[in-house]
């Protein structure tokens, strides 16, 4: 309900938004801290996983994908799908060079 009493779309509450923000800051601290750990080959996957978690939080709650149905969630991930294609085809070349 908005101020005029009309029905509005669902959305995150203020508490949810602040909670998500706290999680984002915690993940920021985590990614900075993890940079000093001797993760070796795992360093990049861990960094990307943390960045991915922050992205998911922003997409779902700040950009409200969690509260939408139908085509919006599909469009939201579509760009990543095509980016994955770019990455896969590019590295298919590099990784198969003799």
């Amino acid at each position: 309900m908005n101020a005029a009493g009309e029905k509005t779309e669902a959305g995150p509450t203020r508490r949810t938004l602040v909670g998500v923000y706290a999680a984002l800051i915690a993940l920021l601290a985590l990614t900075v801290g993890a940079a000093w750990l001797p993760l070796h080959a795992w360093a990049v996957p861990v960094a990307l996983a943390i960045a991915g978690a922050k992205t998911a939080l922003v997409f779902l709650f700040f950009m409200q994908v969690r509260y939408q149905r139908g085509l919006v969630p599909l469009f939201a991930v579509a760009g990543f799908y095509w980016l994955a294609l770019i990455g896969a085809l590019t590295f298919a070349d590099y990784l198969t060079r003799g």
Partner: protein
Amino acid sequence: MTEILPAAGTAEMPFSDVAQRSRAQHLGMWTFLATEILFFGGLFTCYAIYRWHYPEGFAEGSHHLDLMIGTINTGVLLTSSLCVALGDHAIKLGARRTLGWCLAVAWLLGAVFLALKGHEYAVKFHEHLVPGPLFEAQGAHAAEVEMFIFLYFAMTGLHAAHMIAGLGALGWLLWLIARRRPAEALHAPVAMVGLYWHFVDVVWVFLFPLLYLIRR
């Protein structure tokens, strides 16, 4: 852009009603953001290729960046996104003044981000760590460091250009509020600019660890 909605729930052609117009607007903005993912994605792919080939040079290049400023800037952008999200929440309840404050703080935080970025760039110029003929570096990996520095400027520069556009968009929203647009007329602009602003924040969320946090 319609100035005032003709009547609650109705919308002008080609939209059948406000709900349908809202769905169309969301899909349109998400389509644009998908193209942005690919736009930045090209640079990220380039980064992946060269980091994979030159891990030492990239680590050395990363150590030249100011981790403190990078971390602060990430926090600044996350906070500005919170402000925009709270503003969107406020305007759904008709709270135009709250929206105005939220957007003003978000705008200021965005400006702080760009100021810190500008400072970083200035330091890089003094250190001769800029792409082009002015580049100077010593060591076995100098050429690889130069590639890292090129990608650093290209990726953060493209991001900064998007930030400037975002500040313009936020400024436009503040102008709409100053011109006393009714709350209902602000829903869609705030939602669309919000999507763009959050997206630019997400790009930085990926840039930060990939550029600043290599093997510390």
